[in-house]
């Protein structure tokens, strides 16, 4: 802590440059990532770096809230949602509108340059009072925020609840499904399966007497015929199914009698 309020010591400078670069990198990564999960992680990086910058600027409360609420809660919620929706979903980054990307880059850069120049030259002219002066006005950082929230911004603070209610209710309205059909129980499902007339249980296994791959060999029914159901559909479709007369009698005998050569 220095007495001259405008001084910035080396440690602070190092923190600033490291965190600032990481924060901007995170933001760029968010925009440029193809996968939503990656984007979310990039945002988390930005958030954490911002939190560090807040703390370095004597705003510990804000820094902690940033970590707990944004990085901890909001971003994790994001990730959960993304997991549910499907991690693999990735957006195409191919631009279909002609000139859109070029114009966007140019205008973005233009706005950025204007802002950097403006803020830069504006801040040079602004006098600074130092962080301690800001915090000491109410006897500390947390007290300061508390004072503002419970006096000048009391109404607004209450009003934000309207935002939260609206958001929650909006999410309900857009996603909550009313069930108008009875939910089928296991018993119902089972009955339905038997009623459907399709073979209800497991299909018969293929013949087990083959020496190599028995999948193509049909099972023998008690009446001596074969069951087509025991051979998988693709094999049948390819015509690879073996018929009973193709089976080498010797082979069968060897297997059934269990004797070796």
């Amino acid at each position, binding site marked *: 802590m220095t007495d001259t309020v405008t001084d910035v010591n080396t440690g602070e400078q190092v923190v600033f440059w490291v965190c600032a670069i990481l924060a901007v990198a995170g933001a760029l990564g968010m925009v440029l990532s193809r996968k939503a999960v990656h984007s979310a992680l990039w945002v988390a990086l930005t958030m954490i770096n911002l939190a560090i910058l807040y703390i370095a600027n004597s705003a510990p409360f804000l820094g902690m809230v940033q970590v707990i609420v944004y990085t901890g809660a909001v971003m994790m919620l994001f990730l959960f949602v993304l997991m549910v929706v499907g991690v693999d979903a990735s957006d195409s980054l191919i631009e279909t509108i002609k000139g*859109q990307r070029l114009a*966007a880059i140019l*205008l*973005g850069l233009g*706005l950025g340059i*204007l802002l950097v120049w403006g803020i830069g030259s504006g801040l040079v002219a602004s006098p600074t009072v130092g962080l301690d002066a800001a915090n000491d006005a109410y006897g500390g950082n947390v007290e300061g925020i508390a004072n503002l929230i419970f006096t000048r911004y009391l109404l607004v603070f209450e009003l934000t609840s309207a935002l939260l209610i609206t958001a929650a209710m909006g999410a309900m309205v857009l996603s909550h499904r009313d069930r108008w059909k009875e939910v089928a129980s296991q018993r119902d499902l089972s009955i339905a399966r038997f009623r459907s007339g399709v073979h209800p249980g497991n299909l018969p296994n293929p013949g087990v007497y083959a020496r190599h791959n028995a999948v193509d060999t049909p099972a023998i029914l008690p009446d001596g015929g074969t069951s087509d159901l025991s051979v998988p559909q693709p094999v049948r479709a390819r015509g690879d199914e073996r018929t009973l007369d193709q089976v080498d009698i010797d082979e069968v005998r060897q297997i059934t009698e269990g004797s070796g050569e």
Partner: protein
Amino acid sequence: MTELMPAEGVFSLIWLLIALPLAGAAVLLVGGRRTNAWGPLLGVLTVSASAVLGIVMLLQMMQNSPEQRTFDQTLFSWVFVGGFQADMAFQLDQLSMVFVLLITIVGALIHVYSLGYMSHDRDKRKFFGYLNLFVAAMLILVLANNYLLLYVGWEGVGLASYLLIGFWQHKPSAAAAAKKAFVINRIGDVGMSLAIMLMFVTFGTVSFQGVFGVADQASEGTLNAIGLLLLLAACGKSAQFPLQAWLLDAMEGPTPVSALIHAATMVTAGVYLIARSNAIFDVATVAATTVVVVGVVTVFIGAIIGSAKDDIKKSLAGSTMSQIGYMIAAAGLGPIGYVFAIFHLLTHGVFKAGLFLGAGSVMHGMNDNVDMRRYGALRKVMIVTYVTFAAGWLSIMGIPPFSGFFSKDEIIHAAFEQSVLTGVLLIIGAGVTGFYMTRMFIMTFLGKARWEDDVHPHESPKVMTVPLVLLAIGSLFLGMALLYWGNIETWLEPVVGYEAGESPISTTASIALSLLAVGLGVLVAYLMYQRRAVPIEAPHGSWLTRAARNELYGNEVNDVLVVQPTYYTSRWLVWFDNKGVDGFVNGSAAFVGGLSGRMRRYQTGFARSYALSMVGGAVLVVLALVLVRAS
């Protein structure tokens, strides 16, 4: 300065002049089919009652001394905000008095005539409702005591005219004509609204009394600007160059409408506006000179178009344009001309209404055919129409002792007082008038019958011929009556001012010259159309004839200068501004077909380009502010 009299006695009923036809319009338009049976009669009654009230007021007004003939009635304060005030208030003075009489009396006659003319129309009730609405709006226009209320009437007559031009909406041409009239009139209205704004800024008020009281204190540049803007407004409403193109198309409306609105009253509102604003034009010399130029140019444009059209109504419309050109020119002359502009306006209102109604009567007998090449020899079968039309014909040409003679001659004489060139031009214009009116008269009533096979011309019913006769009597006597018995100059002088100027030529000489010119015109027409048979098919004609038939390419000029640029700008902006239009057309197709995938592609595409344009806007806004701040 004239005294402002409180509206007492009969003058406390000024509002009733307007309320009567307005109530008529309300009953007819809101009442619906229930009023079908008696509605048209009610329409006639309300206007007639206003006319009677107007006459009573005239008689009462004549009792007062000339300085005490301006009556002011304030109903309530209409708009009053931040130093700006406009009242719902009326002013009846000598100028508005003559307009009230013209509007209500000619209006009443035309209402009566319409009973016959529209008897077979299904929407007769609506027609009378619109006519009533028009009369009410026109009365607001001439009775207003401030420019803002005048503007209300101005828009009101525009609306009524628009509704009536498009009355026969089953004809696409009628709807198109209505639209055209509306668009061109809006251009004029720009002038009007800007003029009012400018007046408010300059004088802090828009009431006539307020503005005229301090008009001479403003700079001449400002007054010229106001004057030119008022002229633009007048050009739109009165179909003067360069906003003349709509009037010919407006003939798509029923003939009584053409007679009332597009000949006698509404189109003369521009003249009223200029005469009413005389205090401004007296000082604004540039504007006044421009008024004269516009008037003279229109005299010729109208006359040339009138000479070439074979459609009897369009030919008359050209003539109207030309005659209003005379009035506008006279109004531009300043105090030597205002009274004669109004004088000619009154006589023209009567004889041109008669001519139009006569044309309507002819069309009525000819199965609504308007082509003069298929008329001829109608004098034998339509004797009343023939005689009354003749009265109008002689009057418009300015043959003594018909009304037009007195009024037009005074204008020409006054024009000589200002400049010889103007006078000569107006005399030549009179000659052309003689030509086209004689041409029309011969082609319609004289010569050989060129009727189509299934046409059996017949005289119109009494309800139509009686107004014709009354208007013909007006055409004959009104000029004399106003000039010698009514002393029109002294009557109007307190309002618009009057001074006799020094004329380079004597009255007799100018009369002789103009009669000579008219005689030449008549002679040429006689030689061309009476001595030679009129072909049924229009001959190819010279380039001038062809140009005149095409209305001197006014439409094409408008098209190139106004319509096309607007249209292409709009198309271009749509393309530029929002490719989403096409996207949505495709998008809804995709929706119908259930191809939501296609839709989604458009959706994201556009949201990001919208965002892009927002960023672009933001950059510009930031840049603008930073630059302004830095400078």
